[in-house]
């Protein structure tokens, strides 16, 4: 794996030349900015001409990197690409000048210019600039990356991340991975394998062989470990896997069954369900000492725990009021407080990285939904609906979610779907076969 290769991110040293034509009245022009909020968003048209290859050796990389940038940005539903055929101008030099009138004429609101240079040592230097076409001004300073040429996908994601943040003001999320369960075989005897890929489906790798059932991976906060449930020993047991060494081990040698794990925000502890004598409660396990602290003591099913981003609160699913509902309790004690009161059953709560929402699975009237609500249970918003939608996970910026959707019947199976926090831009995440239990990684370092 090349995930830990050095990637030098240097702030660009380009002088942002005063290329703007001073006769333009800029005061009347809306700046190029998208605020991600409720309602219809008309995708912003971007012109993204071919990235300049500064030597013939990097021509292919220039094209590949640009394509990743385009796919990331347009995949958000916030942007659309103006097709090359519509362009009436070309960009021949990274430093301009740029004929903004010609980009304005085709209604481009943003112009992205990129260049790739060959460092001669297997590495490339990739730089980009983003322009607000109407104000003819550069947005941000642009960024220059020096990285292994083999890492061209990551470079593309980094550039797209930077542009996305510049225009939306939100934190980035393209340079991320997704861990999930790859499924094959008949429904009654599914083969399930732990897998990991880039958020856009590239670089898929399998992490387990499929001999034993594996379920619901989650990333450590630094992205270096996965925690998941495996039937390797014959019963469900929480395992932790180091993504670098590929070694895995049980978190605790419990007499009971353990499942539904999730890392604490500092990565030192794990919340999980432990079942003893048929009763499932929530425990917090310190990884270094393997000591388990019991957090719930009810005869009800208490499962699917998730920390708040500050680690002070725990949200979980319980059927203590008969139907499964969502409860919040203080980490360390105190009576859990129920926060879900809508029609139906609620489960798999997961706190957003920004802390503002709790995502959940809701089952009502024979259908499943993924939704979000405020941490006090207010402002419930349903984002999806189908025969079986389940298991949301948050992109690290808390503005996009992924979940899985299972189709009914003996031929049915799960696919993974992403959607923004307002229910827009629902789209399938590409995987070669059936895929479930997505977990979105933190932003890669």
């Amino acid at each position, binding site marked *: 794996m090349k995930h830990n290769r050095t990637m030098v991110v240097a702030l660009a040293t380009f002088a942002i030349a005063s290329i703007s034509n001073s006769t333009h009245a800029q005061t009347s022009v809306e700046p190029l900015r998208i605020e991600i909020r409720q309602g219809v968003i008309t995708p912003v048209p971007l012109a993204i001409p071919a990235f300049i290859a500064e030597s013939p050796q990097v021509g292919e990389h220039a094209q590949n990197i640009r394509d990743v940038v385009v796919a990331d940005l347009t995949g958000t539903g916030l942007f659309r690409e103006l097709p090359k055929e519509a362009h009436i101008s070309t960009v021949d030099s990274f430093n301009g000048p740029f004929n903004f009138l010609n980009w304005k004429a085709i209604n481009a609101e943003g112009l992205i210019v990129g260049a790739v240079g060959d460092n001669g040592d297997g590495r490339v230097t990739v730089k980009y600039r983003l322009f607000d076409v109407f104000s003819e001004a550069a947005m941000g300073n642009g960024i220059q990356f020096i990285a292994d040429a083999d890492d061209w996908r990551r470079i593309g994601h980094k550039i797209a991340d930077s542009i996305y943040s510049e225009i939306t003001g939100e934190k980035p999320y393209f340079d991320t991975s997704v861990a999930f369960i790859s499924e094959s075989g*008949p*429904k*009654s*005897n*599914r083969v*399930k394998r732990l897998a990991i890929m880039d958020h856009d489906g590239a670089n898929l790798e399998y992490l387990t062989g499929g001999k034993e*059932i594996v*379920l*619901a991976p989650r990333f450590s906060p630094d992205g270096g470990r996965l925690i998941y449930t495996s039937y390797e020993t*014959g*019963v*469900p047991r929480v395992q932790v896997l180091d993504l670098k060494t590929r070694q895995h081990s049980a978190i605790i040698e419990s007499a009971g*069954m353990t*499942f*539904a794990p999730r890392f604490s925000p500092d990565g030192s502890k794990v919340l999980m*369900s432990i*079942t003893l*004598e*048929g*009763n*499932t409660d929530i425990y917090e396990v310190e990884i270094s000492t393997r000591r388990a602290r019991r957090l719930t003591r009810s005869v009800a*099913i208490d*499962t*699917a725990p998730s920390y708040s981003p500050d680690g002070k609160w725990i949200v979980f*699913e319980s*059927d203590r009021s008969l*139907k*499964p509902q969502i409860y919040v309790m203080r980490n360390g004690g105190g009576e859990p407080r129920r926060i879900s009161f809508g029609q139906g*059953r609620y*489960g*798999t709560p997961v706190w957003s990285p920004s802390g503002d929402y709790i995502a959940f*699975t809701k*089952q009502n009237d024979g259908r499943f939904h993924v939704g979000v609500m405020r941490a006090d249970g207010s402002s419930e918003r349903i984002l999806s609906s189908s*025969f*079986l939608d*389940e*298991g949301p996970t948050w992109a690290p910026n808390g503005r996009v979610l992924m979940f899985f959707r*299972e189709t*009914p*019947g*003996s031929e*049915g199976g799960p696919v993974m779907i992403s959607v923004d926090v307002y229910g827009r831009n629902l789209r399938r995440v590409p995987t070669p076969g059936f895929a479930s*239990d997505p977990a979105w990684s933190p932003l890669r370092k």
Partner: protein
Amino acid sequence: MRARTIAGVLLASVLLAGCTNNDLFGLAGNTAESANSGGIDQSALPNYEQDSPEYFAYQVGDRVFFLVDQSTITEEASATLRQQAEWLNANSDYTITVEGHADEQGTREYNLALGARRAAAVKDFLVGVGIATHRISTVTYGKERPVAACSDESCWSQNRRSVTLINSELTG
């Protein structure tokens, strides 16, 4: 509505119980065939030894069924479990694993916990009628291992089950 659901469940269970006793063996089919084919041969009835795990699975009945979200042992289930206990008493060298399963309605995590509850309910019942607790281990499969793949009550009612497996190794 509720009564109808329960009736449906019971009916499905009865049908399935019928299946276990007949179709799995091909008893009905084979008998009918040999009758129609002019009685050339005796049909090959499966003849499991009474103390074999196969006999337990097919003659005693290795599974019981549950209502939606429930882990309560129904009257019908308790009849099956009493027969299981009888067999286990007669074959006291065997240990068992009780699997708890759920249908696909419900989240993965909840169904794991629900399956564990069902397996524990069966274990408690068997212990209650005299099987030593150390002979019984439990495991939950949640909704991971359905036996019936369709997505309606006719299949779901078969999947909400516990299965008592006779472990291959005998105890010392």
